[in-house]
């Protein structure tokens, strides 16, 4: 039987040490999904006229035309 403060403190720490679940893998997975969703959102829509694809298309056209 636990009969003094010191043992209560010690036992309480032991209990939480033993019984705290490890949720790190779930946190990592959720954050990875959030980041991926954000990236997809950033990439959705029409390419910007200032983007690299347009620059390269224009570069190819002017080079071939030259």
């Amino acid at each position: 039987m636990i009969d003094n403060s010191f043992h209560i403190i010690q036992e309480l720490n032991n209990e939480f040490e033993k019984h705290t679940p490890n949720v790190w893998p779930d946190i990592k997975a959720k954050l990875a999904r959030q980041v991926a969703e954000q990236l997809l959102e950033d990439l959705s829509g029409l390419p910007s006229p200032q983007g690299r694809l347009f620059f390269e298309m224009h570069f190819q056209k002017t080079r071939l035309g030259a």
Partner: protein
Amino acid sequence: MKDIDACLQDIAQGSMTALQQLYQELHRSIYALLLSIVKNKSLAEDLLQETFITVYSKAHLYVPRTNGRAWVFRIARNLAYDALRKAKFTAQLEMDSGDGASLPNSRVENLDLMSALLELDEADRQIVVLHVVAGFKHREIADFLSLPHSTVRWRYRRALSKLAAILGGE
């Protein structure tokens, strides 16, 4: 391990490594605080995840050198109270004695001490957990819970006596 302030600053820059370090340092005491508020293991586990996800998304709002540990604990505490408000969990759990996830039913797993902890009133539970498991000083707890320092001290002593009495069957 880096100090909590340094971790929060790295997390604000998107560092998952720093978030993992912070998790390693604080997850046990955050879980203890969450459990002391919501009194339900599976909800505390969900809120533990949510706490660190919120820390990751809000780390840029943390003002350096303003007690990073208390800032993280405040996020956890706010999430716990939000969850209780939304689900009206307190009343439901009192009535729902058949819920296998709630701590009182875990007596069979030899968790008498944690069950005894849950018999304390809410502020006393938080004071005990914040001091014993999270390592907060009484003065920090007083700030955190907006209570006078002397009140925190005597409530802590009273709570330990109550725990001893519950466990001793007095």
